[in-house]
């Protein structure tokens, strides 16, 4: 612990320096308020996405058609709860409060990834979410393992590892289904049709409409632009779709030898905007369910707190502290 108080500009210089040298900012380091608040918002949204993202998949746990798939799905959803906890902890290193962030989620003041406002309608959706949604998430998150904020970067390393595992499991389920009956193959194709475009939207608006990207990249809490990541995802996914034997629902999708990338069709940003604004198929349902669980559980949390207090009081009495 040092007792000298370096002045503001000196602190800023040190901070910029650390970022510049690609070193990590740690919780006890000085950081600009904008950096802190941007990070809190970003990590909280990520945490919220893990928690809300449990719902579409949990929808199929009780109906999973084999015990093995049931165990895999249950473990995956459990991992997501764990990721949520881990990320909320990361926000707490920045001075945020988990229950306050939960309050912002259930009152609609903070967002989560819009992809989870689409419904899961068949068991194939479980596989497609693993393949496409987790796949897109990984594209977004792998660069964050080198994020400038230490606790977040470390959380991302662990989370990405687990997400890759989930993605492989999802793809493997789809492979099995595609080798199955015509009904199963139809289910996989239908699910792919429904999730493809929303997956592309996961990377956010086109770079021209993404005003905060520059600052976030300067702070190294974002490493690539939305469009760069989206292209990377498409390039990665098209061969996987071919291997699987499903058709991606985009007539404009084709290899562009000149660019060395796949070209793809126009995204329907009107739908994207409607969903972000709260009018997607499941926005109301997702937030209501989270609110219901949280508010319906308040008496349980209060009971636990009350019991802990009683226990503490009893302990003090036993230690004679109550004898005064």
């Amino acid at each position, binding site marked *: 612990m040092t007792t000298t108080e370096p002045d503001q500009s000196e602190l800023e210089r040190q901070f910029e320096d650390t970022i510049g040298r690609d070193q990590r900012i740690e919780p006890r380091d000085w950081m600009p308020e904008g950096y802190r608040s941007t990070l809190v918002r970003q990590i909280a949204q990520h945490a919220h996405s893990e928690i809300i993202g449990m719902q579409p998949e949990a929808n199929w746990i009780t109906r999973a058609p084999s015990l093995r798939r049931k*165990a895999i799905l249950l473990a995956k959803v*459990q991992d997501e709860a764990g990721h949520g*906890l881990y990320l909320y902890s990361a926000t707490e290193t920045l001075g945020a409060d988990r229950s306050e962030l939960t309050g912002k989620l259930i009152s609609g003041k903070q967002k989560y990834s819009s992809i989870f406002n689409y419904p899961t309608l068949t068991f194939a959706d479980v596989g497609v979410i693993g393949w496409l949604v987790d796949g897109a998430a990984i594209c977004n998150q792998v660069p964050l393992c080198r994020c400038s904020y230490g606790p977040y970067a470390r959380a991302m390393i662990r989370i990405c590892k687990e997400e890759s595992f989930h993605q492989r499991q999802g793809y493997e389920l789809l492979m099995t289904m595609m080798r199955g009956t015509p009904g199963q193959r139809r289910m996989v194709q239908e699910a792919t049709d429904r999730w493809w475009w929303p997956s592309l939207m996961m990377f956010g608006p086109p770079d021209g409409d993404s005003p905060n990207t520059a600052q976030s990249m300067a702070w190294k809490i974002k490493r690539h632009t939305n469009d760069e990541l989206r292209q990377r995802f498409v390039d990665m996914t098209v061969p996987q779709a071919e291997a699987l034997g499903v058709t991606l629902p985009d007539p404009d999708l084709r290899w562009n030898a000149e660019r060395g990338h796949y070209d793809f069709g126009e995204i329907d940003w009107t739908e994207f905007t409607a969903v972000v604004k709260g009018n997607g198929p499941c926005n109301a349902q997702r937030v209501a369910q989270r609110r219901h*669980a949280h508010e319906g*559980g308040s*008496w349980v949390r209060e009971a636990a707190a009350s*019991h802990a207090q009683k226990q503490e009081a009893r302990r003090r009495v036993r230690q004679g502290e109550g004898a005064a």
Partner: protein
Amino acid sequence: RADLAAYSLMLADDALVVSHRLQQWCTHAPELEEEVALANIALDLLGQARMLYSRAGQAEGGDRAEDDYAYFRTESEFGNVRLAELAQPDFAFLVATLLVFTTWRLALLQRMTGSRDPVLAAIAAKGIKEVTYHRDYAAQWVVRLGDGTDYSRQRMRDALEAVWPYVDELFATHPVERRMAEAGVGADPASLRDECAAVFGTVLESATLEVPQVSPRAGVAGRAGRHGVHTESMGYLVAELQSVARAYPEATW
């Protein structure tokens, strides 16, 4: 060997059905830590069910595998106790059920570690570690809610009153259980009564609650869960569990 298969199925069904009820809590728990813990218990029990179904399949000597038992039997072929299938209207009800179930199952698995069937003995040995944790989890919450606020105390008490009529059934011995106990393969549930009562007494005392004084819930002509005579909620549980598998009977997953 028919008895061994039937016995394994009963124990498997108990685990699968409690796991199912826990799965239904997923994304509805009062706290994220509880999401993780409940999913964990559900996973452990699901794992136990799978091993026990496999044992049943081997004992039968036919070609039935775990999914055949879980997805292609009718409700009346499920031999779980009725306690396992009760719908869980709130968290107090859930932890009450879980305390009773895990205390009973732990006592049972402890006996079964000495089973003459080496597979059951191994499953029991592995299960003990898991269920000990499950029981501690349930007991801690019963204590927190019982010795928490006035409101939680009342809800915990109501939940215990509602669950307790199904406790007696846990200690009723089905002919298969009797024969398996006599053969040194399984345990006679009747012999677990005192041991379980002692645990219930200790936990409820810590929770500043009393063991409910209620009459046992009757079956139909003396038959209940172990005989495939369930509650009306079981039909919906089985329908949900099997819905996708039954809609695609030719599929593999």
